[in-house]
């Protein structure tokens, strides 16, 4: 994907160029997901809502008054996302009521968290496919040490008697293949569709 500078995007959107709005969405959506994931505590539905709300706010602003420094469009979008996440938290705080937690535990809402579970399942399936493909048991162990046990690279290399180059190569290969598996499963398309494009 070609990166379009914020100044140019701002100018074109202000001029009514609909394709520029599409480019802005494609350009900012991955970063907004990263930013908002940390602030939504694993609530996939809320994450999607906030990504859409942020993009709508940014596009409406560019269509109308515009922003002071169009070159800082990314910073503006990031701050908008943070503000919306904070507002969402405040709203949730206001709406929170005392509940009978025992009763809630006994009667979980099956519809709640379906998307999260689907996302978890999708990731788990992709990981299983990846693990099946890894030629060396050592590579599986390395992934576990790195991602689950949070051991740093030096520690893992020493523990497993690996060179840094071998570690980097195995990790890079696993990342690439995992991404490929997820993309084959339509991961990217689904995320764009959820934005209503």
């Amino acid at each position: 994907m070609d990166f379009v500078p914020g100044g140019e995007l701002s100018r074109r959107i202000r001029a009514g160029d609909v394709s520029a709005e599409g480019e802005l969405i494609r350009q900012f959506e991955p970063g907004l997901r990263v930013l908002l994931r940390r602030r939504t505590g694993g609530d996939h539905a809320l994450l999607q809502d906030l990504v859409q709300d942020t993009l709508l706010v940014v596009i409406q602003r560019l269509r109308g008054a515009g922003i002071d420094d169009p070159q800082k469009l990314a910073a503006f979008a990031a701050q908008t996302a943070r503000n919306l996440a904070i507002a969402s938290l405040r709203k949730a705080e206001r709406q929170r009521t005392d509940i009978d937690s025992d009763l809630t535990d006994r009667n979980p809402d099956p519809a709640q968290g379906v998307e999260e579970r689907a996302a978890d399942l999708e990731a788990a399936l992709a990981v299983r496919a990846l693990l099946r493909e890894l030629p060396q048991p050592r590579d599986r162990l390395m992934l576990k040490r790195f991602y689950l046990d949070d051991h740093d690279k030096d520690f893992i290399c020493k523990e497993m008697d690996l060179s840094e180059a071998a570690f980097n190569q195995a990790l890079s290969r696993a990342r690439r293949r995992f991404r490929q598996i997820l993309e084959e499963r339509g991961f990217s398309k689904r995320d764009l569709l959820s934005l209503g494009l």
Partner: protein
Amino acid sequence: MSQAEAEAFEEYCLANPEFAKQVEFEQRLKLGLAQVARGPTAEFVRSNQPVRWKIAAAAAVLLGLSAAFYAFHGNPAGSRPLLAAVSGDAQQAGSTMRLALVRGAETSPVLQGGLVRVEIVGLFDTGIHYSVTLDRLQPKKAIDTLATLYGQHPSSPMTLEVLIDSDQLEAATYSLRVRKQSSDEEALDFNFVKY
């Protein structure tokens, strides 16, 4: 990561969608690994405990060897060869049967029970290897070859000795066929019976 660093990182992600995608795939990978690690699948058992797999493999091999050892040593009768070469004086004990080609003989030697030392009497070349084959002879049936020894040396120009485990033989008529190896000379057949 400080607040300012975190915000700079987030803005970098917005300005670099490909980097942001990679970050998200990393998050997914971590999430997926956690899911798999929590589940009942064996992916991490294989990878996490290579030593256990080695131990299991070693145990399987040990079990196999134990079974083989028992088969050979736990059941002596079954472990002994049916037909064996004589080696040393240790095998002097037990019964003996002498086999010779006697013109006009109307009876066959009788094989006793247990481990029997068989002396085959004839004219042998001590510098030649002989093969000795034990056959079961059944009326109106093809000869049933039970065992063959190769590379046998006569103990003297008159005697070639072998051991037969009689307990492994059922009641029948048998033949020991002695042949010079690497020769087209006719074989000599020595019959005996086991009751």
